[in-house]
């Protein structure tokens, strides 16, 4: 990761560490936790879309797989939560392969519909055969590791954002490696990539798996925090929301995914003042910010900073 990113990361980690001291109370922290969970999915989606150029409207499907597999195993078999979470990610990775292989042939809108279909199928499966059916199920154990149960909002906040930070670093490393370069290359030209010996199909499958694993990780965190899940949380609506996060934040930047996730998660909380009108105001803000911050919030901020630097020097 570059020096700019490293500085940003330091600021980011400091902000996270201090946040529970400033924004006390588990309400604010829970908003933070859900922001973090969404950020985790958004980072994966950002790599998938912004770097590899693959649209996905089915990310909530992987998110749901992670939540359900982990929760069901922990409720039914009482295995350690960390094992259940790993199982959730493994199943999601398998599902990603199943989705990615046919999706290799598809582009643009067709890929969007294929992934949308995948997400909806997962939703129907959870509805029909998931534990508890459409009503969902509860009493899922809290996250615990080495006998320490993470229950309180502040400790879970650190857990989630710790995971986000580690994932972000992992993702930056990946993007700045030969693999990240190859992903960006296939975004520009698949023909040339293949001709240069970059296996486009394998890379696409791998990046689908990566985004699925991130999403499943997030899903299992959600399940073990809320301790109740139902299929409604993993619908197409959530997939669209995740897409919105990535785009609002700036699709070509991992920080964008994180910022976008926080903004889209926090915004409805801020809009509660508007009561009934919140959906109106929400739609209006989304439309305007998409129109005026076309490249996304983070690229915009970077541009602003660079402009300032430039003018300062002049």
């Amino acid at each position, binding site marked *: 990761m570059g020096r700019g990113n490293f500085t940003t990361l330091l600021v980011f980690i400091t902000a996270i560490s201090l946040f529970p001291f400033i924004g006390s109370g588990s309400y604010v922290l829970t908003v933070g936790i859900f922001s973090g969970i969404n950020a985790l999915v958004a980072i994966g989606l950002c790599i998938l*879309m912004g770097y590899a150029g693959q*649209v996905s409207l089915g990310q909530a499907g992987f998110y749901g797989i992670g939540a359900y597999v982990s929760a069901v195993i922990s409720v039914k078999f009482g295995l350690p939560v960390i094992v259940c979470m790993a199982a959730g990610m493994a199943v999601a990775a398998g599902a990603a392969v199943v989705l990615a292989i*046919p999706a290799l*042939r*598809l*582009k*643009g*809108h*067709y890929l*969007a*519909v*294929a992934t*949308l*279909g*995948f997400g*909806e*199928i997962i939703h*129907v*499966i959870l*509805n*029909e055969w998931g534990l508890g059916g459409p009503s969902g199920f509860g009493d899922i154990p809290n996250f615990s590791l080495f006998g320490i149960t993470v229950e309180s909002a502040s400790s879970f906040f650190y857990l989630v954002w710790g995971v986000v930070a580690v994932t972000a670093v992992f993702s930056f490393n990946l993007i700045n490696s030969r693999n990240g370069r190859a992903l960006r290359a296939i975004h520009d030209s698949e023909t040339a990539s293949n001709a240069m010996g970059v296996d486009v199909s394998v890379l696409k499958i791998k990046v689908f798996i990566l985004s699925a694993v991130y999403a499943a990780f997030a899903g299992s965190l959600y399940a073990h925090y809320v301790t109740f899940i139902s299929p409604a949380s993993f619908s*197409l*609506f959530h997939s*669209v929301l995740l*897409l*919105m996060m990535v*785009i609002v934040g700036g*699709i070509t930047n991992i920080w964008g995914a994180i910022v976008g996730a926080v903004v889209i998660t926090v915004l409805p909380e801020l809009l509660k003042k508007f009561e*009934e*009108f919140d*959906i*109106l*105001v*929400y*739609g*209006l803000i*989304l*439309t305007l910010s*998409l*129109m005026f911050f*076309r490249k996304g919030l983070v690229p915009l901020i970077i541009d602003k900073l660079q402009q300032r630097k430039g003018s300062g020097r002049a």
Partner: protein
Amino acid sequence: MFTVFLQFLFSGLTTGAVYALVGLGFNIIYNATSIINLAQGEFVVVGGLLMWLFSESFKLPFLVSAVLTILVSGLLALLMERLTIKPLPKTDLLLMIMITVAVSILLRGLLMFKFGKNPYVYPPFTEGEPFIIAGAVIQQQTLWVIGITFSCIILIYLFFNRTLIGKAMRACAVNPTAAMLVGIDVEKMIMLSFVLSAMVGAIGGIAVTPISLMEYDKGPMLAVKGFCAAIMGGLGRGRGSVAGGFIIGILESMTAGYIHSGLKDAVALLILLAILFFKPAGIFGSKTALQMRRF
């Protein structure tokens, strides 16, 4: 047994007709801009709710209400295009599509504000007993919906093939730069495509509300189904999307009838995925046309 099959078929046609109209609306805009307007479902809702407003609340005659509804819907789409689509460069399609999502949220908010959350309904176009064909029942309104769907296809076909302005719109679809060079106002064509597709959506809403009721948040479901219909038929193919709509409607109904009603959405989507696997450009789509597209 045949009666049962026929009944499933009629049910599939009823739902399929709406998907077909939404799919058709998608195609009109897609052809002009390559954008998928995910607010398309909202225009169906606008159609149904405005029709209720004019005919039931203002007590206007049927035809007047219908015409007013279609015009107001077109006007709404005009506003949407002028305010959110026109000011932006048409380069980042994903951004444009997300803007249509944001607009759909906004429209839903407006609809909820005006109409509340209750469902609305008005009497069918013609009152009377349903028809019985080989023991299976088909409601008169269903026939209206199917008839209107086909009329729309024919009208749109004639518009695009027989009128100068329709031909100009097609030219924009094939090659916007060339169209501009021969003096076609591409911007105006894009605007027109939004208006036209909103009108088609509104017509669907007007026709279907007596059967299925209409409430403010029905749009997303319709958009998703219509999107699937458009993809199944092959984007850019108006008639393909209509076929796609009916196929999805019938698939859902047959799955519900012969497999399990809980799985109807999943099976219809699985079949869509299978089709895409073998024909990545949809049933009626051509692969070369797909490659020419930017997205």
